[in-house]
C-alpha cells in the first residue's frame, strides 16, 4: 500500500472549499497569471471534477495542475484550511502513475534519486565553473548567461568542488552533558552551498553539542513530490528516517526551509509511522532561539560598520508560522541593521521543480520581490533556505540590483568570527 495519500483520501476536504476566492491573494502563480486555473480554488474544482469523473487527465488539466509551487500559502490563509498543496501533489502522482514521468520529471528524479550522479555532476560542475567564471565578478550580469542544460538564462550557484560530506565528519563529538543533534543538510547545502552547512556545524559545536551528519541521508523528497514521483518520495522518506535511527539524536536540525517542509511537514501527512522522526525536526532559527542564543547575540557590542539586511520568508517556514524567529535572529546580530521589505512573505518563485517547467512564470513571481527589495535599501537579503537564495539571486541579477542573497547563517558565522 502506498505511503503517500491518494486523491480519494482528499475527497472530503475537497468539498470543504466554499469557493470564496481568498486564495487569489496568496497564490504566487495566480498573481503572475491572473488565471483561475492557476489558483487553489481552480485546482480544487479540477480535483473534484476528476473524482466525480467529469474531467480526465487532459492536457489543460495537467497544465493547470503543474501551475502550482506547492508553497502552501493558500492553505495558510484558507478559511477552511483546504490543503491544496497536498491535493496538487496527489493529482500529480495520479498523472505520473497513469502517464509516466514527464521528461523533466524524470531528469529531476534521476538526479536527486542518485547520490552518485549528483556527486559526479557536482564535481564536474566544479571543474567547469571556475574556468568559465573566474574572471567575472560575483555579481556580474554576465553570469545571467551561464547556461544550464534545462534552463537558459538562469544564474545558478557554483557547484562546490568539495561537498559538505568531504568537509565535515559524520560525527562530531561535543560536551558529554549535551545531547546529540542530527543535521539534515539537504542537497542544496551539501552540494551547492556547503559553507552554510559548515557554519551550522560550527555553531552547534561552539554551543557544545555533538553533531551527527549521517552519510546515508538523501534528498528530502520535495522536488520528487513536486514532480509527482510518489514512489521516489517513499523511497527517500524511508531512507531518511532510517539514516537518523543509528544515533540517539534529540533534534534533527535543518538549515533549509524546503527540507524542513519535506522531512517535517510532508512526512507527517504520509501513511507511515514517522511520528518519532518528524517530532524531532526543527528549523535552525527556532532551535537557536530556544537555546537562548538571541539574548547572547543581543548582548554583544554592535559593530560600527553594519550591513543593511532585509529578510525573505521562505514559504516552507512561513506556512508553519515560523516568521518571528528568523527576524529576531537578524535583529540580534551585531553586524546587521535589519530592515523590513514590502512583499517579504511573497514566494520567490522556485517551488520544487516548478521553475524548471515554468521558468517564465517563475521569473515573473520572483520579479515581484524586486520593488520592495529596492525600496528597503538593503544590500543583503537574508533567508533560511538555499533554494530561495538561488532564486532570489537570479531575480536580483535580472533586475540589475547590487544586492546579495545570503543565508542567515552566513551572517551569524560572520558575527561569531567563525
Amino acid at each position, binding site marked *: 500500500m502506498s505511503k503517500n495519500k491518494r486523491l480519494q483520501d482528499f475527497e472530503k476536504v475537497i468539498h470543504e472549499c466554499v*469557493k470564496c476566492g481568498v486564495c487569489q491573494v496568496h497564490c504566487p502563480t495566480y498573481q503572475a497569471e*491572473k*488565471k483561475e486555473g492557476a489558483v487553489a480554488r481552480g485546482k480544487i474544482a479540477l480535483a473534484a471534477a476528476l473524482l466525480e469523473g467529469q474531467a480526465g487527465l487532459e492536457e489543460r488539466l495537467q497544465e493547470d495542475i503543474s501551475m502550482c509551487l506547492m508553497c502552501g500559502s493558500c492553505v495558510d490563509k484558507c478559511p477552511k484550511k483546504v490543503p491544496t498543496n497536498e491535493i496538487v501533489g496527489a493529482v500529480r502522482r495520479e498523472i505520473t502513475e497513469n502517464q509516466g514521468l514527464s521528461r523533466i520529471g524524470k531528469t529531476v528524479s534521476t538526479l536527486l534519486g542518485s547520490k552518485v550522479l549528483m556527486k559526479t555532476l557536482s564535481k564536474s560542475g566544479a571543474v567547469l565553473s571556475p574556468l568559465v567564471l573566474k574572471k567575472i565578478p560575483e555579481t556580474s550580469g554576465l553570469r545571467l548567461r551561464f547556461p544550464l542544460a534545462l534552463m537558459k538564462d538562469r544564474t545558478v550557484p557554483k557547484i562546490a568542488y568539495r561537498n559538505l560530506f568531504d568537509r565535515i565528519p559524520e560525527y562530531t563529538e561535543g560536551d558529554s552533558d549535551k545531547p546529540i543533534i542530527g543535521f539534515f543538510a539537504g542537497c542544496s547545502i551539501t552540494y551547492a552551498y556547503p559553507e552554510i552547512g559548515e557554519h551550522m556545524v560550527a555553531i552547534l559545536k561552539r554551543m557544545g553539542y555533538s553533531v551527527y551528519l549521517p552519510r546515508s541521508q538523501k534528498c528530502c523528497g520535495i522536488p520528487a513530490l513536486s514532480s509527482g514521483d510518489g514512489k521516489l518520495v517513499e523511497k527517500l522518506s524511508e531512507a531518511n528516517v532510517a539514516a537518523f535511527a543509528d544515533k540517539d539524536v534529540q533534534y534533527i536540525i535543518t538549515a533549509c526551509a524546503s527540507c524542513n517542509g519535506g522531512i517535517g511537514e510532508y512526512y507527517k501527512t504520509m501513511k507511515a509511522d514517522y511520528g518519532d522522526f518528524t517530532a524531532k525536526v526543527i528549523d535552525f532559527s527556532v532551535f537557536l532561539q530556544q537555546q537562548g542564543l538571541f539574548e547572547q547575540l543581543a548582548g554583544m557590542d554592535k559593530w560600527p560598520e553594519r550591513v543593511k539586511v532585509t529578510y525573505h520568508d521562505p514559504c516552507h517556514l512561513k506556512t508553519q508560522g515560523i516568521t518571528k524567529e528568523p527576524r529576531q535572529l537578524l535583529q540580534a546580530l551585531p553586524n546587521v541593521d535589519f530592515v523590513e521589505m514590502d512583499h517579504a512573505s511573497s514566494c520567490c518563485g522556485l517551488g520544487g521543480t516548478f521553475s524548471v517547467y515554468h521558468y517564465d512564470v517563475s521569473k515573473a513571481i520572483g520579479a515581484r520581490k524586486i520593488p520592495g527589495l529596492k525600496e528597503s535599501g538593503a544590500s543583503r537579503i537574508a533567508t533560511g533556505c538555499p533554494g530561495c537564495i538561488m532564486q532570489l539571486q537570479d531575480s536580483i541579477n535580472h533586475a540589475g540590483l547590487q544586492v546579495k542573497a545570503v543565508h542567515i547563517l552566513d551572517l551569524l558565522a560572520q558575527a561569531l568570527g567563525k
Partner: protein
Amino acid sequence: MDEQIVQELIEIVGEKNVSTAQADKITHSYDATQEVHLPDVVVYAARVEDVSSIVKLANRWKIPVLPRGAGSGFTGGTLPVHGGIVLVLTRMDRILDIDTENLTAEVEPGVVTGELQRQVEKLGLFYPPDPASKEFSTLGGNVAECAGGPRCVKYGVTKDYVLGLEVVTPTGEIIRTGGKTLKNVVGYDLTKLFVGSEGTLGIVTKIILKLIPKPAAKKTMLVQFETIAGAAQAVSAIISAKIIPTTLEFLDAATIDCIRDVSTISLSADCKAILIIEVDGEAQLLDEQAEQILSIISPFGILDTRIAATDKESEEIWQVRRIVSPSLGKINPDKFNEDIVVPRSKVPDMICALEKISMDYDVPIVNFGHAGDGNIHVNVMVDLREHGMADKMIKVMDEVFAAAVNLRGSISGEHGIGTSKAKYMSMELGAETIGMMKKIKNVFDPNNILNPGKIFEDTSLQTAGK
C-alpha cells in the same frame, strides 16, 4: 460550440486566450455561490477594442457574454447559466493614474480593490468602499455590484465614488460616461445606471474614481452586551445622537457561539451581542468621540468594553469580525447567506423578526453585519439532507425578505440580485418598476447578449440562443 465562433475569437485575442478545454470550462463555471454552470468557451481579453469585438461577435452569433473578474460574487453575477462566452478581465489590471491634484484615480476593471487602496494611501489618499472581499475582488466587479462594506456607514458605497466610466455596451459600442469632475449634469446620469447593473447593461473597461484625504487616525472599540436588544438599541442611540462612526458592526449570540473558541479576545459566557465601533479623524478628537459614544450606549447592558490603543490591538478586534464567516459551518453544513437592509432605526425590529422566524421554523439563524447602515447579514444554517428542509427553507427565506420589506427595507444591501434573488424582486418592486427596468435592458441589449438570466426572473426575458 460552433468551431467558426472559436476561430473568430482566436482572431481577436489570439489562440492562447481562447479555450474550449474542459478544464478551463470547469475553472470558470462557479463563483462564491458555489453553483456550477459550464460556459461554452473561456476568453481572456486585455484591451477595450477586443472586448468590443467579442461583444459584436456575440451579437452576430446570438450567444451570451459573461464578464468575469475575481468570481467572488455571492449572487451568481458571473455564472454562465445559459452557457456562452465567459469573458475574463482580470488581466486588465493597470492603475492608469492617481491624480493627487484632483483627488481621482483612473483604473482598469481588473485592479483589485485592496491594491488600489494601498497605492492611494501611500499618497495620503483614501478609497473607502471596503467589501469583505476587498483583497481579491476587482473594482470592475465592485462597480458592477455596487459593493459596500463596513466603512460605508460613514463614507457611502461604491456608487458614491464613481465619477466616470468607459463601457462597452451590449451591442459592442465603446461609450464614455461622466468624467473627472465632481459636478457634471450633462445629459442622463448613465454612470449611476451602470453602477450596480450586474454586468447586464455593459462591460466596464475603465473607471474614474473619486478619492478623499486619508483620515489621520482611527480608534476601534469592541463592546460586549448582555442582550441583543441592548446592542440594537445602542446602535439606534448612536445614530440618533447624530454621530456617524466609521464602522458599526454587530454580532449576535449565535455568531458569538460560533467564534468563542477561536477568538483571541476572550468573550464572556454571558455575552449575547457584540458591537465593533470604529471612529476616525484627527487624532486629538478621537478620544472625546469614543467617550461620547461609550456614554451614550452605557444604559444598554454592557458587560465589557475594550478600546484598542495600538494598530495591533485594533487589528485584533477586527480579527474577531473576520473569523465569523469561516466559523459558521460549525452549526450546519448549508448556509443561506442574505444581506437584507432596513432603515437604521429598524434594526432592533428586524432582529426581533429574525428571532421569531428562527423559533417558528426551528432553524438556526446567525446574524451579523453592518448595523450602522441597517445592513444585516442573515445566515440561515441548515442541513439540506434533512427531510423537508429544502421546502421549509423556501418559506423561511420568503419570511425573512418579507420582514425586511415590511420595515421599508430592501432584500439586498450590497450583494446584488443575480440569479439568487431574482424571484424575490417583486416583493420589493412593483410590476411597473420592474417593467421599466426590463425596458431599459431591452434598449441597451436587444439581443439579450449580456449576462442573461440575471436580476430578472429567467422566464421573463427572451434568452439568447446558443
